């Protein structure tokens, strides 16, 4: 396609080098790819929550009670729910990447099936674990 030319008038900076998001119709596999990255970022930021809870627990009962109360509030539970979904989604996505590393699952029906299984599996695991958390106190 186009290359950056010496002495260019800056047009090469604005010209896309190949058809990109402006051209491609969103497909499940490409959505799942960016979702894997996004859930990774969510988990990265979520380690702050983990660090806070652990430090609170190791400091004193009062600190822990405050932290636990925040997490048990409605926004706290929403954040925890999203974090747990990110964990399960990223976990299953990682499994999918491992399958690809072994050389399997690239052909047409399998890669779509793997993407769907990851997406649905992540939701099922999240809802399932939260169900267990509430049903078996």
């Amino acid at each position, binding site marked *: 396609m186009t*290359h*950056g*030319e*010496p002495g*260019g008038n*800056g047009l*090469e*900076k604005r010209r896309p*080098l190949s058809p990109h998001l402006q051209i491609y119709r969103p497909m499940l596999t490409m959505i799942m790819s960016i979702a894997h*990255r996004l859930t*990774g*970022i969510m*988990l*990265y930021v979520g*380690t*702050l929550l*983990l*660090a806070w809870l*652990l*430090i609170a*627990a*190791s400091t004193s*009962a009062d600190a*822990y*009670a405050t932290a636990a109360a925040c997490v048990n509030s409605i926004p706290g539970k929403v954040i925890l729910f999203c974090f*747990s979904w990110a*964990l399960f989604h990223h*976990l299953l996505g*990682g*499994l999918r*990447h*491992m399958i690809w*590393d072994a050389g399997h699952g690239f052909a047409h029906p399998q890669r779509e099936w793997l993407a769907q299984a990851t997406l649905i599996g992540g939701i099922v695991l999240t809802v399932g*674990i939260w169900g*267990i*958390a509430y049903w078996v*106190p």
Partner: protein
Amino acid sequence: MATGSVPVPHAGSKLRFLGSAKSGTADAWNMRVTSIALFPLSIAFVAIVLSLLGKDYTAARAELGNPFVAIILLLFILTGVFHMKIGMQSIIDDYVHDAHLKEWSLIANLFFSVCIGLTCLYAALKLSLT
């Protein structure tokens, strides 16, 4: 190119003739090894969190004082922090192009990962050793 000349790299061009990055295999390998380790460790972590629900403070501390639980938690923290540092590094490499911003972002990523890791490690050790 109409003139047939070789494009000369300059600040505006994407092509810079810098050669290979020379390293990256270690990161790719460590990503895979940490992923393999994190698979059982994450499941164990979720199990530990579930078993801590509904426990009062003393019971929670007693559980976290159990050596098996504590070691699993420590392994999860260390492996997870290493995994996330490499992952975020790939993201910065992919999306941050300004040279100075990239350098500082990579440094910030390293510092964040180390600090979070050490913080969680300290807390987990304090919980299990005291």
